[in-house]
């Protein structure tokens, strides 16, 4: 099992992969990707029971992960590649013609690790619920995880799903919201305030946990806690506070780096702040 220190080193490399992917095509979403790097590394290198080498769409007997806010594809692609789903060199093809690494993740080009297209927001929780129900019917005790943006909670379908999961005791589902407080047009408070998220999810009948998404040790403790909650009659929500752009000082704390790529100079600056631990692709 990877140690906290090792996981942090992997996360540093993943952050390099993110800024390099986005820089290479001068497009993509670095802010949310950097903020969620620790979460993805914790999940794929420590939490998930999964088979990167023998990917199957059904994933029977494996934990499953669904990314609902598909625009943070650079962090997912990096972690999928680094954990062995496909060659790391393929990160070079991100957002290019004829690539399996589409701007937003998709099953359409057959990229191992992806089980559902996402990009149009608000749909991932419903899909994760479906996969969790399928596991229950199959007598499969594995857990289904999903990640959502906080701005994404403005989509109504999320609340349809929230209501359904609690009412139907979908307790093999652990969802996480990336609470970075930012969306394209500004802070979530400025655009459309989300109000009291804990109170909202509790009122919908979920068990709610808080986590610092940029502290590896705490993150793992909280996800382990959530896992212990599985099978007890309620879905679990982790409200994960992150800093958008985490790891690159000039990208942190602002919505401005939601969907903007760094130029050559900015890339060099960013990379100087992120240690190369596993070797660049």
């Amino acid at each position, binding site marked *: 099992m990877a140690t906290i220190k090792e996981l942090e080193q992997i996360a540093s490399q993943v952050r390099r992969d993110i800024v390099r992917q986005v820089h290479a095509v001068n497009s993509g979403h670095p802010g949310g990707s950097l903020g969620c790097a620790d979460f993805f590394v914790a999940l794929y290198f420590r939490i998930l029971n999964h088979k990167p080498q023998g990917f199957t*769409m*059904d*994933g*029977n007997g494996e934990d*499953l992960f*669904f990314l609902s806010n598909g625009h943070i594809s650079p962090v997912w692609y990096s972690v999928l590649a680094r954990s062995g789903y496909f060659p790391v060199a393929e990160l070079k093809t991100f957002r290019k013609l004829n690539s399996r690494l589409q701007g937003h993740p*998709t*099953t*359409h080009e057959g990229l191992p690790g992806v*089980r*559902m*297209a*996402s*990009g*149009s927001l*608000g*749909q*991932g*929780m*419903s*899909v*994760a*619920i*479906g*996969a*969790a*129900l*399928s*596991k229950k*019917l*199959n007598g*499969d005790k594995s857990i289904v995880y999903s990640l959502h943006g906080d701005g994404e909670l403005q989509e*109504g*379908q999320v609340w*349809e*799903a929230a*209501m*359904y999961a609690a*009412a*139907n005791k979908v307790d093999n589902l652990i969802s996480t919201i990336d609470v970075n407080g930012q969306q394209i047009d500004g802070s979530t408070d400025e655009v459309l305030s989300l109000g009291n998220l804990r109170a909202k999810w509790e009122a919908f009948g979920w068990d709610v946990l808080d986590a610092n998404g940029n502290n590896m040790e705490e993150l793992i403790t909280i996800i382990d806690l959530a896992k212990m909650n599985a099978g007890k009659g309620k879905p679990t929500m982790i409200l994960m506070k992150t800093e958008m752009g985490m790891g690159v000082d000039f990208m942190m704390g602002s919505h401005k780096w939601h969907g903007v790529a760094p130029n050559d100079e900015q890339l060099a600056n960013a990379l100087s702040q992120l240690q190369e631990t596993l070797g660049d692709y």
Partner: protein
Amino acid sequence: MEYLSATEKNDTRSGFGAGLLELGKINPNVIALCADLTGSLKMDAFEKEFPERFFQTGIAEANMMGIAAGMTIGGKIPFTGTFANFSTGRVYDQIRQSIAYSGKNVKICASHAGLTLGEDGATHQILEDLGLMKMLPGMVVINTCDYNQTKAATMAIADYQGPVYLRFGRPKVVNFTPKDQKFEIGKAIVLKQGKDVSIFATGHLVWKSLLAAEALKADGIDAEVINIHTIKPLDETAVLASVSKTGCAVSAEEHQMNGGLGDSIAQLLCRNLPKPLEMVAVNDSFGESGTPEELLTKYGLDVPDIIKAAKASIKRRV
């Protein structure tokens, strides 16, 4: 014509319910989801028989489509049930991204399609669903004509791997196709051979077209009637073979002219065999409250309209 002796009436939605129940018995992977319209969709027998495989989502169609997409992961074959309006227009983006683009094996089963929904009026009478669904890459689009065919189609789509839109309706209509027919996706059925004009019909207008063909005999017109139960993939071979013989065509459907069956046939004929085509369809209009028969008459989808279209098409033939 053998079919015209049929008198028993039944609703196509009951054919769906019967097919689904049958499927439940023979295929343990078939599961059903419904958004608060179990009785209307005739899914209650399945719910009663297989409660562990029935999922009531409440009035939340977007969530239902997403759950259905997710349930395919792990090998389930989900059949969603709600009205055609809420099965398509209301959830178009969910179907597009989570089902069609993701290539998920979901069967979207839609009742109360078209004007024959009747008194509920235009909010519920979707006339755009075939067009919406046929534009999605990889989506199979089926519109069955009677109880027996709907039951057969419901069972057949479970054996097809990929997303399917199955459209049927509310009113009791003559059940004239064979009881234990084999349903072949994409294979048109010639119901009546003829040499003067080809009538391509789908859904409830298939029966109307048979009646029109019978009436046309009195004017010495020998019409061919073809049941196009699958709008996509269209049986291009059957359409072209018939029009090659007759030299002119009519399309008949309970749908907008834009985007429907006639539109697909027009595209095919223009590219391969430019011959006259008259379209019996709703012409850029919403419906309204009324009885199914009153509405079909008012909106030009009745037997006299098909007769008129057939004569017009023959007249345009050079």
